């Protein structure tokens, strides 16, 4: 057992690290209410005036809508392909199994510029113009692993004998899936989908290489911060994004913790 002094040291260290993790996030939340459009600390005063102003910004709306559409389609593709891959890897030992699990992790294990650059040169090579669809392809590719990991972790905990028992009792493959396998993995699927959407909604690096002239919400934020323009709007969006992404992540952990 650890000595008292070790435990105190560990506890203090943990408190400091958690404070370090949350300090900047809390601070940036306060800036959304900054009266001044100069972003200095302490803020000049509190106001809500930037919220309606941001909502009325047409560029922001267009970017938000593109992010949502791309995120939804990319998540759908990732859910299908990630679930298939998880079932295939869980099912049996087959040649190429290791290679598949490795390939699925690659898009997030490799540095972002590589995935972005590779997809960009791929589209250029085939003369595919950058569009909504190329954004979706990029996002789906790195979201597959999120669903895959969640579903595979669940499948490993569900004994295969359950499905066999169902078959022995006369249920067909489809019915077994519907009544036994799917309920067992459904929360993992939901969690995977929520996290995949959160990842897609926030991605910048790969997206800059696959979006062309269009702006997703993160691309708009990046451009605005870099140019130092419309910073009050950026503050509001950043707060909104923090709140909105916290919800799916929180839900994802809730649905998986229940089991």
């Amino acid at each position: 057992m650890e000595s008292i002094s070790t435990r105190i040291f560990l506890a203090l260290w943990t408190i400091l690290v958690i404070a370090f993790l949350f300090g900047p996030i809390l601070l940036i939340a306060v800036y959304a209410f900054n009266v001044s459009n100069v972003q200095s600390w302490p803020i000049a005063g509190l106001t809500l005036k930037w919220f309606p102003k941001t909502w009325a910004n047409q560029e922001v709306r267009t970017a938000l809508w593109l992010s949502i559409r791309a995120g939804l389609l990319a998540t759908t593709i990732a859910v299908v392909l990630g679930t298939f891959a998880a079932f295939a890897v869980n099912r049996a030992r087959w040649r190429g199994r290791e290679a598949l699990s490795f390939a699925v992790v690659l898009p997030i294990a490799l540095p972002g510029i590589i995935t972005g650059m590779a997809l960009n040169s791929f589209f250029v090579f085939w003369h595919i113009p950058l569009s909504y669809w190329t954004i979706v392809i990029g996002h789906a590719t790195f979201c597959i692993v999120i669903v895959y990991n969640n579903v595979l972790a669940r499948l490993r905990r569900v004994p295969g004998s359950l499905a066999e028992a169902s078959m022995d009792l006369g249920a067909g493959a489809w019915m077994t899936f519907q009544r036994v396998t799917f309920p067992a993995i459904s929360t993992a699927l939901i969690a995977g989908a929520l996290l995949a959407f959160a990842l897609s909604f926030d991605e910048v690096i790969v997206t800059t290489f696959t979006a062309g002239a269009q702006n997703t919400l993160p691309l708009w934020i990046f451009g605005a911060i870099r140019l130092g323009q419309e910073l009050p709007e950026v503050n509001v969006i950043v707060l909104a994004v923090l709140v909105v992404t916290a919800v799916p992540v929180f839900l994802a952990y809730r649905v998986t913790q229940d089991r």
Partner: protein
Amino acid sequence: MSAAMDNSAVGPRPGNRLSALFWRRPGLSLAGLVLPPVLWMVLIYIAALAVLFVAAFWSVDDFTGEIVRKWTLANFQEIVTSPTYRRIAFRTIGMAALVTLTDAVLAFPVAYFMARVAGPRLRLALITAVVLPLWSSYLARVYAWRLILSHDGALNWGLKALGLPPADIGYTNVAMWIVFSYIWLPFMIMPVYAALERIPRNYFEASQDLGARGGRTFLKVVLPLAMPGLVAGSIFSFSLTLGDYITPVLVGGPGSDFIGNVVYSNVGVANNIPFAAAYATVPLVLMAGYLWLARRIGAFDVM
């Protein structure tokens, strides 16, 4: 009656015959499961990596700006001989290593506290506290630091309140180091925690029974077993730093360019995709080696 039960009973319905076929020939349904994800990964992602690799050996015509699909080593020659590109590559790799080390030091006590000291309720709360920032907006967090570290930001305000001179570290490599370490820290804590949590309690007791003191138990038992977790975490912190170009733009200074910045400007502004591809192979080769090593250590099991 029998028709109503048909749904679940074994009968000569086509659906049942189909499922029976799948049951007898597992290879068939396996192929159905394997093909879609494999096709997607191979036809899009692996193919894209292949194009990237091949394009690195092409060049761009100086006059027309068109890509010349002829084999040349000119891009690599320029990367190796140009002092600027060499310096940028070393800066990127050095920063990635420094950030990884910083995160390992910051993360280990936290992961240890979560795995060995905290009770189940506190542990769950801490997991949530670590995971939430991990998934919260990357840009929001980098932007927060840009404001904190700027001249009239919260850092200098705090220092002034304490009667200390201002630390103008905004837009420098120090700022990049802080921000990268901050952003990727949760990616280090989680796998180290996963590795530590797996160590059975009686290993600690056994080590003590055999006469090992705290420090020796730590070095001989805890650290080796935590290694896959540290390696898994380092994959993220190292790779994500290596592939970043947003943080150098937002919090770095004029001399803070990363490999990613050069790649990005060559795709966008300079329109020299072959050179960008060649430069991108530097982190690619580095990570390929790193991942191969990590696999051998067993880091993928705790990711």
